[in-house]
């Protein structure tokens, strides 16, 4: 690593720490209805939307109707995206005359974009029309991210309120996060990206002659607008198949830095919103620190893995699968960020990462996408671990465990366990299924433990709603489209529903005031405990699976064997 690499890493982290309170405070104002500077710009539109969908934003609902509204909205979105793919040939904005998509691929893609996963079993530029990309996918990019934010805001209301069953209004939360957070930020990011050379047009793909005289097809389309939201909303679904390694998606080192930063920005800032909502920014920073510590550790291990000598090839580090304009540090930072924050966009081939860096990528996702995580999703996933930590360690102070003055009882524990089980179920059961079935194994590109890692990665990515792929796996088959689709649904709603249930239950409770007898959740001690619980409860389950994949591969590589 050069000094410049180190400076870049530090700059990245410093910028993230610096902007967290700025954006966090702004988001707090958005959701508490305080006046903020975007009000004059989009206020009229917000009111118009409420009028159009006949919703009174001040009318709040309990957790069940909040969840019901959320599920209904997502279902409608799913059906819409599913149908327009099935009939894209008959729909406008299809200059390349792409045919209709197969039902199982359409199912997978619709689920994928609705759940903020953006797993792509297809190649964007050769499969989907501009209409599908813009009206279907880009819209889902916005609303799936907004859904995640709405959930965490509802959770925070549950934590901070007392003796009520009201968690807020889903439609207004959805509208506000889209209009005041995602839309302005996307515009800002898109403009910068266009400035860096990202394409933004409605032209058909162009065919040009290369210097050697060969013919090459240059893909076109409204890329910049979709890239901004795919990064900011931790969606990750690339406009082009090679995602952010494509020069039209990510042309320069600056655009790369900018896009990487966008991955973590909102999720990091939400921790500050968290602190503001519960009335103590220390609480928010504690969670931020846990995320940051896990992130930096993962990054360090990945960098170590990539920069250490591969005994098989004998040279220092491997550029296989990486773009020369980004180099190793930028590729590894991206792979760590994109898997930490269930984004899933890539700027290098994760399949070619060293076993250690590949393992970090998988572990980031296995922990439940809580290291910053998806927008909203990362924080409510972390919230589940906070509940578990409070319950396990809280007893040790000699009181019924409580979080923010709320007693954590059987119901909360049960829901937290269900949320945890959902992810484990998808990762373990589906990977096992694929590892013993011919339709699972036939898609493999590599043999040995690396092949196993590819399957493990795919289902982990689905369960964590990440969407990135090891890419060695041919996932556009009936088996993978369906299992991954179901996995994404369980990984998304198997967490959202229990988390909202916890919020509903907590909202109804009274708040015990702080005292010397209170189990503190805003200290380094708690941060350490939380990390321990995340690693032992969230991570150890996968130790056998990891042992047979990346760990064994790493050990084998050190003794000179690769796959």
């Amino acid at each position, binding site marked *: 690593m050069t000094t410049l690499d180190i400076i870049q890493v530090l700059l990245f982290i410093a910028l993230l720490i610096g902007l967290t309170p700025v954006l966090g405070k702004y988001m707090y104002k958005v959701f508490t209805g305080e006046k903020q500077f975007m009000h004059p710009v989009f206020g009229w539109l917000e009111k118009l939307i409420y009028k159009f969908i006949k919703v009174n934003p001040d009318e709040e609902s309990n957790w069940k109707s909040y969840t019901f509204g959320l599920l209904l909205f997502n279902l409608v979105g799913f059906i819409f995206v599913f149908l327009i793919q099935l009939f894209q040939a008959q729909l406008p904005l299809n200059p390349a005359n792409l045919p209709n998509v197969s039902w199982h691929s359409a199912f997978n893609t619709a689920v994928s974009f609705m759940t903020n996963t953006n797993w792509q079993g297809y190649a964007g530029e050769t499969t989907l029309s501009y209409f599908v990309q813009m009206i279907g996918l880009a819209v889902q990019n916005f609303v799936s991210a907004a859904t995640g934010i709405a959930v965490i805001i509802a959770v925070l209301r549950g934590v901070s309120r007392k003796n009520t069953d009201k968690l807020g209004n889903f439609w207004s939360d959805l509208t506000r996060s889209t209009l005041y957070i995602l839309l302005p930020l996307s515009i800002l990011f898109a403009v910068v990206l266009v400035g860096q050379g990202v394409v933004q047009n409605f032209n058909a793909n162009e065919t040009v002659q290369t210097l050697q005289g060969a013919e090459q097809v240059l893909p076109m389309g409204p890329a910049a607008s979709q890239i901004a939201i795919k990064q900011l909303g931790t969606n990750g679904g690339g406009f082009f198949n090679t995602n952010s390694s494509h020069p039209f998606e990510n042309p320069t080192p600056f655009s790369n830095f900018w896009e990487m930063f966008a991955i973590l920005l909102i999720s990091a800032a939400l921790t500050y919103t968290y602190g503001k909502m519960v009335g103590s920014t220390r609480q928010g920073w504690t969670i931020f620190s846990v995320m940051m510590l896990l992130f930096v550790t993962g990054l360090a291990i990945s960098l170590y893995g990539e920069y250490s000598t591969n005994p098989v090839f004998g040279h220092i580090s491997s550029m296989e699968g990486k773009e020369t304009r980004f180099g190793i540090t930028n590729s590894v930072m991206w792979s760590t960020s994109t898997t930490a924050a269930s984004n899933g966009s890539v700027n290098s081939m994760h399949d070619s990462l060293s076993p250690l860096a590949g393992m970090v990528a998988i572990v980031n996702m296995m922990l439940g996408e809580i290291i910053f995580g998806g927008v909203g999703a990362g924080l409510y996933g972390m919230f589940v671990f906070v509940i578990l930590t409070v319950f396990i360690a809280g*007893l040790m102070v000699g009181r019924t465990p409580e979080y923010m003055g709320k007693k954590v*009882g059987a119901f909360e524990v049960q829901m937290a366990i269900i949320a945890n089980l959902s992810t484990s179920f998808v990762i373990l059961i589906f990977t096992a299924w694929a590892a013993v079935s011919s339709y699972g194994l036939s898609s493999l590109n590599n043999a040995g433990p690396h092949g196993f890692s590819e399957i493990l990665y795919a289902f982990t990515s689905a369960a964590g709603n990440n969407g990135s792929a090891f890419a060695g796996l041919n996932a556009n088959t009936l088996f993978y489209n369906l299992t991954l689709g179901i996995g994404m649904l369980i990984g998304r709603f198997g967490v959202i529903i229990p988390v909202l249930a916890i919020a509903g239950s907590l909202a109804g409770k009274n708040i015990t005031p702080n005292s010397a007898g209170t189990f503190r959740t805003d200290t380094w001690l708690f941060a350490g405990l939380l990390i321990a619980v995340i690693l032992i409860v969230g991570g150890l389950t996968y130790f056998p699976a990891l042992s047979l994949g990346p760990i064994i591969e790493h050990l084998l590589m050190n003794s000179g064997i690769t796959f």
Partner: protein
Amino acid sequence: MSTRQINSLFNKKILLQATKDSFTKLNPIILIKNPVIFMVGIGSVLTTIAVISGIFSGNFSGFNLQIAIWLWFTVLFANFSEAIAEGRGKAQADSLRKSRIQTMARRLVGDKEEMVAAPELRRGDVVICDAGDVIPSDGEVVEGIASVDESAITGESAPVIRESGGDRSAVTGGTKVISDRILVKITSEPGDNFIDRMIALVEGAKRQKTPNEIALSILLAGLSIIFLLAVVTLPAFFGYSLSASGLPMSQNLTIPVLIALLVCLIPTTIGGLLSAIGISGMDRLLQRNIIATSGKAIEAAGDVDVLLLDKTGTITLGNRMATNFFPADGISESDLAHAAQLSSLSDETPEGRSIVILAKEKFDFRGKEIHQKNAVFIPFTAQSKMSGVNLTDAKGIVHQIRKGSSEAIRSFILNGNGFFPKKMEEKVAELARMGATPLVVAEDNKVLGIIQLKDIVKGGIKQRFAQLRTMGIRTVMITGDNALTAAAIAAEAGVDDFMAEATPEDKLRRIRLEQTNGHLVGMIGDGTNDAPALAQADIGIAMNSGTQAAREAGNMVDLDSNPTKLIEVVEVGKQLLMTRGALTTFSIANDVAKYFAIIPAIAVSLYAGKDGIGPLSALNVMNLGSPESAILSAVIFNALIIILLVPLALKGVAYRPVSANTALIRNLVIYGFGGIIAPFVGIKIIDLIINLFA
């Protein structure tokens, strides 16, 4: 740990019974109440089947047999821990029960009395108890007054007074009337009086899981399911790796190995000890002579963060005592003390006696000397609010010495054309401000001085409150005194807050207010008018000497009727919760080492080179002897740790009155870090021993 506890823990009879019970508890219907241990039970059966089918198919595996044996031991050890906790409770209950078996009662039917056995008494029956009779069942004195020996249930040998009406009318079955005769109206149905209920509770027969225990069980069951997922999917991952290594599928993991892994990962330690911890919590309260009507109450005691404490009896000694004499100008202190003593000789109240004692201590006056003189004692009456003595001296002149409240003495003096000195007036006001009660002594029409009566704050109570404060518990003193007096005592005792001139309604209102603000309130009381407040409080401890209404309203009864007990109850509650948390943390932290023992052992052949040792052997950080011994060591450790921790579960983790943060760090270091390290050491040692014999 006192010798008594050690004795009862290792009592042969209890051990024998507990060993027997460990086997009867193998009944699946009983076992399923504990999902984690039930899972181990199923694993034991499956492994045993694997061993037996191995014998019949001719490839008997000694390794599988050993696993099976240790799995059965794991289940038995868990059962044993519960059985021994129950056994100890039973032993305590049995001694109480003995007193009741042979009791006959004299039931009053109309005017006649008839002899019936105690268990036949119904609620509403009236029985006669003379001196020497054992009171047959719980009841209320409806006629008469008697002294009762309650040592059978309280261990306190001094008899207590029980009388009809008022706050001391409740009697408990099994106690003995020592003097007089009372009529007792039975207030409980057979088999449901206090002792019966207590016996049922400590024996675990009626024990219901507490809210916290339920939540913890859910967590443990959930973790078990997650680990079950990890284990059932392992053969698929393993099979893939076998084919990738070019090994035959017959080398895939066997059922006994998978079960061994599962049992090591699921939280068997806390799962096995959970009910023992709960039962022993009850038991620890019982050792302090407190009966909780539910396990839930003990748990809530740990959560209490506001304590309402009656001033009298809890914070101060029962009565006010004379502490100082303040003579008027021209009077010596000894003259004042002398007059004060004379005026108090006929005052039989504790306050009066304390004046006599103070005079004796300070100036060595003796009452005897005075008796010889020609004296007429004027006792205290509600009208005069004074007591005193009329002395006839040698000349035949009568001197009237009086002692009483400043108002009473003032009018006494003014009647004799005397005057009340301004300086004394000021002193009276000053003392009142300080929270003391001033009594004025006068002779004829002259003020001699003031006696200061003070509440004596119990020794060590201030430190106790300071400890409570570090634990985050707020204390509120309740008193009928006026605000000035209350404030002074509150300051001296170091309570956080006080309620002066408090009526029972005020108490109830205060409890509700605290609860609305999110606090959990504990209180102790005895009177009928305390009943609503006791019922409203999260922890209401009724004194055994209190009324039946109070006892039914509370969720605990203190057999010793000692108000300071409230603090101990809180400590027992906290200790119970801490023990659960500590062992849960220990149990979960154990998993790290077990993975490092088992994973390299089962994967040793994968992707192996010519030496037959696969790369995952690098994870064998403990350098365990062989794959078989590694797995076996983990299973053995897992079983033994349950039995080793039984004393801790019964005794509870060491409890100190410290802040939440300090307690957390302490427990984390011991049970968190200890939980990670202990199995590494333990498994290694067991492995060394196994390989020594192998």
